[in-house]
């Protein structure tokens, strides 16, 4: 169901203000979404004044600086810091992306950081992605081949392999799915761009033998056709992939097969 307003327990309140103590002249304000599961309170926006003279270039560096030097209670996921693991996906300046690859000098004005949109928040910037992972498991993202013979190489021509370019690079950071209004309103039924891109990655793989079954499984009014080509997914993808095109390719395959 389309629900524009946030539920009562999710209304955002004004939070604390952390004044800069370093005395630096190069100060930026960073607004961060906070929610602590141990108190019964609503989420709030805390504002931090950060000394930008001693801060490396990415938003993740900024968060690390706040956690190390100003407020150690802030929680967020991060791991590789090189745009490979997809842990630090969040909403920065109104757009989803990876904090480790987003330079903060690209953001004008105050820096607003929220968790990925329309997820149940577990703490601060950490959203609950378990529904998405369940949906990912439902497309059975592994090679299905009856001739599975470990003693021999499973050949694939250069041409067939090139069909996987722009698909295999996906790191499942969920930036695209949580940017999609269709996924916001129908996230329990619609698979969302990330999972559909993965579904297409296995449908198009020349070594996979269950293309027909895979297509049949995904061909559903809600699972697939809730995509209305809003293109927020492609706009958000930090790896420059095109989930909208992958979804359209599935639709096209279904229409022509």
């Amino acid at each position: 169901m389309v629900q524009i307003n946030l539920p009562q327990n999710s209304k955002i309140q004004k939070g604390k203000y952390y004044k800069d103590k370093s005395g630096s002249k190069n100060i930026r304000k960073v607004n961060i979404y906070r929610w602590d599961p141990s108190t019964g309170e609503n989420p709030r926006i805390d504002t931090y004044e950060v000394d930008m003279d001693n801060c490396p270039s990415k938003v993740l560096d900024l968060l690390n600086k706040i956690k190390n030097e100003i407020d150690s209670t802030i929680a967020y996921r991060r791991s590789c810091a090189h745009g490979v693991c997809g842990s630090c996906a969040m909403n920065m300046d109104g757009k989803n992306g990876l904090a480790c690859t987003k330079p903060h000098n690209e953001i004008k004005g105050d820096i607003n950081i929220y968790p990925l949109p329309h997820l149940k928040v577990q703490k601060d910037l950490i959203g609950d992605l378990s529904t998405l992972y369940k949906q990912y498991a439902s497309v059975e993202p592994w090679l299905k081949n009856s001739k599975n013979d470990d003693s021999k190489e499973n050949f694939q021509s250069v041409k067939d392999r090139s069909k996987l370019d722009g698909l295999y690079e996906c790191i499942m950071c969920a930036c695209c799915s949580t940017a999609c209004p269709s996924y916001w309103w129908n996230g329990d039924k619609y698979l969302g761009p990330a999972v559909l891109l993965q579904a297409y990655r296995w449908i198009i793989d020349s070594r996979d033998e269950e293309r027909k079954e895979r297509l049949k499984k995904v061909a559903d009014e809600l699972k697939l056709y809730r995509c209305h080509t809003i293109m927020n997914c492609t706009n958000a993808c930090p790896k420059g992939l095109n989930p909208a095109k992958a979804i359209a390719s599935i639709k096209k395959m279904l229409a022509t097969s």
Partner: protein
Amino acid sequence: MKDKNPLSPHIQIYNWHISSLISISHRIIGIINIIIVTLICFWVALLILGSSNYQLVQNFFETYIGKFFIVGTVWSFSFQALCEIRHLFWDLGYGFELKTSNITGLVVIFGSFILTILILGKNIIL
């Protein structure tokens, strides 16, 4: 997930892009166009009932609101038509690159106004 966990903000904080703006306007204008088509059907039905009714509608079209209605109708049909053409290309698998989709989006917006002027011609400044 337990109900006590809050829902993170979504449409309240997410930036609008050309593609998402056109997508939602396409939907709204689609609904408006259905209403307009219904009104046109009533208008045609009125013709059957005689000339006095025809004059009634004619008088409405002479007013500023009536003229706005005509221009608005032509624009909303132009917008919808261009959007649908864009969707046809998408259905064929073309135009998904970010740059292309942004350009075609702008073509839809500006094209709808240009098409309105072309269709109405001189009549637009009555």
